[in-house]
């Protein structure tokens, strides 16, 4: 756990970059510090491993004032990854990752094992990459090495200063996803600085919005989007915050598990009665394995009253359904694009598991909107 207690940073020229910051960072979580330029987010982070001195207040790291340790010793226990990566070009990948373990005096065998382990963790083949030099790597690969290096001696805490900031948007997405996967396994306590609200929402377990050296709001992404504390936060998270919030929710959590459906081999009358019984306009059609094959509506049944196969609209589950692991935002987008009011939800194999309606999503968004307005 890291605890900022009334931390102040005043530079020699009198500028107060951080002004009485109090913040508790929970173990095993990614805490994002975000805010406009000059808000003190990077300064706050750099005080944790004492790259900057603290003017007033204190920072507790795992229950002890971080000034109780010699600075170098403290830093070796805290992983550090930065936007510019800062790999050492004269060292191989192995030597780069081994910097902290070597500082800590690990044995060579242990270091080699650790480096291979880390390379695999960040998705690079150790045999191919171990002896390469940074110049031989792409930007994305360099940043992966940067993360591996920060994890070198398996520190419980990591500081990451816009680690994916200088990378093209597509690679950035990939790296973010990969890092979230890694974090699931390693559960480090991470302070993550960024100025990109989308990245913050995606990466953060909690987000601390800062402005002019002070904390404005510290909440989970969902709460932050649903209940921005004031106009500054609302502007900062953006006008599309409702949509962003839908991006946090999974279809799995929102869908109706009971949905009217008929089997491909059923008769047309069965389908008609099922629809009428449920009081809806249409039903989904599945095959004997439960895989979504299309849908049938009242109109179709009226035109082809004898055959379900003739009455139904066939469609591939990839095109007419959404995955249960998709976000609500993706489901909304799919419905808007296809002109559906209701869309079937399928699992990885295409088996129908439920449905979600446009109305449900709208209500969700409206609810957030109302809550947000109440909060102001």
């Amino acid at each position, binding site marked *: 756990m890291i605890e900022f207690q009334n931390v102040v940073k005043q530079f020699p020229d009198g500028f107060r970059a951080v002004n009485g910051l109090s913040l508790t960072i929970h173990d095993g979580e990614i805490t994002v510090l975000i805010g406009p330029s000059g808000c003190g987010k990077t300064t706050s982070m750099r005080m944790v*491993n004492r*790259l900057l001195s603290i003017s007033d207040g204190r920072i507790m790291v795992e229950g002890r004032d971080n000034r109780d340790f010699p*600075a*170098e*010793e*403290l*830093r*070796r*226990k805290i992983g*550090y990854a*930065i*936007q*510019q*990566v*800062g*790999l*050492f*070009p*004269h*060292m*191989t990948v192995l030597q780069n990752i081994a*910097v*902290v373990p070597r*500082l800590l005096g690990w044995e060579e065998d242990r270091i080699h094992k650790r480096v291979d382990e880390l390379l695999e963790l960040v998705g690079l083949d150790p045999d191919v990459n171990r*002896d*390469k*030099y*940074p*110049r*031989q*790597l*792409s*930007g994305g690969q360099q940043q992966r090495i*940067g993360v591996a*290096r920060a994890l*070198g001696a398996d520190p419980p805490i990591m*500081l990451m200063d816009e680690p994916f900031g200088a990378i093209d948007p597509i690679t950035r997405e990939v790296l973010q996803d990969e890092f979230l996967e890694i974090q699931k396994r390693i559960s480090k306590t991470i302070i993550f600085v960024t100025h990109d609200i989308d990245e913050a929402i995606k990466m953060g377990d909690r987000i601390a919005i800062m402005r002019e050296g002070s904390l404005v709001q510290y909440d989970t992404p969902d709460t932050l989007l649903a209940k921005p504390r004031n106009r500054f936060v609302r502007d900062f998270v953006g006008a599309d915050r409702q949509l962003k919030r839908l991006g946090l929710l999974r279809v799995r959590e929102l869908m109706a598990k009971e949905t009217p459906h008929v089997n491909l081999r059923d008769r047309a009358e069965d389908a008609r009665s099922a629809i009428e019984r449920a009081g809806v306009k249409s039903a989904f059609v599945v095959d004997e394995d439960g895989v979504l094959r299309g849908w049938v509506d009242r109109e179709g049944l009226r035109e082809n009253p004898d055959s379900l196969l003739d009455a139904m609209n066939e469609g591939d589950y990839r095109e007419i359904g959404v995955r249960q692991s998709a976000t609500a935002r993706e489901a909304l987008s799919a419905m808007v694009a296809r002109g559906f009011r209701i869309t079937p939800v399928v699992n990885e194999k295409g088996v129908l598991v439920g449905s979600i309606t446009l109305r449900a999503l709208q209500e969700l968004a409206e609810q957030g909107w109302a809550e947000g307005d109440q909060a102001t």
Partner: protein
Amino acid sequence: MGGRGSGHVRGATGTTGRTVNGGLGEGPRPLAALGRFFTPAALVWLAFAALLFVAMNVRETIHDPQLRAAGVKEATIVPDLWLPVFSFNPSTVVAIKGSDDLRVLSFGGLPAVVSDSPNPAAASDKAGAPWRVTLGWFALFMVLVEGLLGVRYAQRDEKLVRPLVRAAGIFLVIWSIYGHEPFWDWLLHGIFPSSPDLLYNSNTVISLAGQHLTLVLISSVITVAIGLALGIMVTRAEFREFLPLVSDIVNSGQTVPTLAIVAIMAPIIGFGFWPAIVALILYGLLPVVRNTIVGLEGVDPSMIDAARGMGMTASQILWQIEVPNASRIILAGVRTSVVINVGTAALGAYVGSGGFGNPIASGLNQAIQPWVLLGALSAALLAILLDYILGRVEYVMTPKGLIIER
């Protein structure tokens, strides 16, 4: 590995399509690969070497007055250093008709024996021990070093034959200039046919070279030590305020004419070796200090930030991160400084420090042009040679990761 374009950092004259495959290399296609080594530059070296070989193997009229007085009018000049290389027989014949005077031919080389001398045994004695370490052996050593470098760094840029060919050329040049006075005899007589005094009479070229080299090496070692220390010191946060002061002093050291420094030092320290050394140090400091500062300041700050953030101490950052990354620029400064020193060391002759300045000064005083040319050419060649050697040092000492290609 897609991505950013391949940066050819080194070797603008490089061959095309080099690859760095982590030591695995491509399949062997020796003949096709050989073609790539013979770049225009390599061919020029080869031609140069061949030319020297032919030029050195001719029968020459002897112009040396001493020898002429002794009745030697003509000789087959066989480069003495080739004897062990090609015949492996130290007593291979070097013919000087009617003379047993070996002053000329055994100079700085391996023993040479005059075949038709009246007394071959005596001649052989005069030539000295067969395995005497000479400049020739130094040249041979350079060839070996070049060869080894070529093998060691074959993966780096696939230049194996090129350095070898280049080394052969250098070998010939060193030998002909410093180890072979008939060459000078022949050259100077060609330029100044009417001059009676061709070779400088009070020192041999080799001993002048020795004096000159001593001056340059001692002053350079001290210069580099002081320069590095100063450069490192003023780039540390604690001493940064001295940076302008130091660069002013260092700059002014090079502004004051060396001759003036030499002249000022002479009354204080006296004549001879040390005043020249002091002047050389003052004069050579600028490139070392400046390049050290530029090199260290040029190290990517994010790299240093990362190093600090990982818990490296200030001295670990300096020696493990900053210096290796600045090494190329620092070494370039050292190289410049040493080369400049070769030129300025010639001025040491005015305070009696010896070196190639001696024939220049005497030649100017007595209006004997061949002496001036002898000193100037030899000094110039020494500068080129040292520059070359330091270039190789730079090549070896620059961390591989800084010059590797994708």
